[in-house]
């Protein structure tokens, strides 16, 4: 079997086979995971850290950690959500490094200028509206919301990761949800 053929077959195989093989030390299989999930991991990291040029560093870091820890992954079929988890950890590490104090509560930086609704009323209007609303959220609210809703974190896990209290997490999430819902209503 030629290596091109082998690569193509690996590209078609499901996560449990590809990740299981990568866990056993097959770099070609790991390359398939990199091709398969780079876009998702970049997109997720970008929602946590908008406007930074370091998204690629975060994702590269996440992949390197993933390579070393793959043998610990009990069910290789769950590699996708596991990679998401590692990505958000790396993104949060990045946040911590760039924000020396636990000042998430006070980070109510002015939101970027709001886009007029008409500009996002397109085929995928709902998705576009949600994306725009997220961009407008203050950092703390956005981080909590993205970890919870995109990353599937429990409230306690968000509190641990961001080093804030559980009640702060709940408060930030409630505000984020209200803001997003109301903004999305305007686009309907």
């Amino acid at each position: 079997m030629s290596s091109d053929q082998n690569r193509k077959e690996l590209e078609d195989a499901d996560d449990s086979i590809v990740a299981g093989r990568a866990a056993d030390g097959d770099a070609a299989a790991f390359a398939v995971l990199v091709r398969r999930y780079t876009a998702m991991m970049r997109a997720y990291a970008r929602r946590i850290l908008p406007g930074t040029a370091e998204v690629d560093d975060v994702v590269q870091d996440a992949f390197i950690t993933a390579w070393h820890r793959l043998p610990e992954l009990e069910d290789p079929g769950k590699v996708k959500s596991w990679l998401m988890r590692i990505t958000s950890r790396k993104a949060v590490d990045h946040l911590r490094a760039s924000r020396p104090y636990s000042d998430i509560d006070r980070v109510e930086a002015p939101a970027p200028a709001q886009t007029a609704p008409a500009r996002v009323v397109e085929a995928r209007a709902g998705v576009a509206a949600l994306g725009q609303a997220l961009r407008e959220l203050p950092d703390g609210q956005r981080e909590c919301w993205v970890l919870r809703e995109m990353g599937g974190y429990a409230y306690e896990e968000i509190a641990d990761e961001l080093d804030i209290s559980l009640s702060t997490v709940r408060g930030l999430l409630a505000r984020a949800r209200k803001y997003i819902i109301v903004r999305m209503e305007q686009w309907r």
Partner: protein
Amino acid sequence: MSNEYDTHDLRGLGLEPEDLDGHTIEDLTDYLDAGRTPPDPSIDASPGCRLALDALERLRDLTPELLSADSAAEPEVEEAWVERILTGITLDARAGRRIPFSAPSPHADLGITEGAVRGLMRAAESAVPGILVGRCRLDGDVTEPGAPIRVCVEVSVPYGPPIPLLAERLRTEIATSLMTHTELNITGVDVIVQDVRRRSPPVEEGR
């Protein structure tokens, strides 16, 4: 601040306790998270709460779509990126246990790593077109010469050929290979078919 979209003017859908018959958006989120059980009549009977619950559910349904749309909007992954990551990983990280084999003289100490044995098991796939080996396991004390070892491989097979036939060919190939190249006392080769691949469309030119 007279922006017409300023938060203070966002009054279309009421999300404050006075709009929600005393409930808060947090209560409603918790209620949704719990699958609306046990049913709470004070929420279910409140028109304000029902509107807010609908909005929260729509939001929840949209979220995976946002991640998909965001991912699709990311640039195509370049091979240079893949290379950059592969050069960052150390390939000898998966040696595993050391498996001794008998040396011709007492002054020599020979062995093979578990990782290399897994490599042999993966290589057996080339004898069975279309089959792909996933995770391989060696059960037993491989560090003890002659100890009984059972190996297990997870595989992906192409859609079409009879699966038992493919699995049997791979089993034979792995057993032969391990017998030829190692001194492991293999007592069994288990093959678990984990994935059946549909034929993928032919690769387009220029992609």
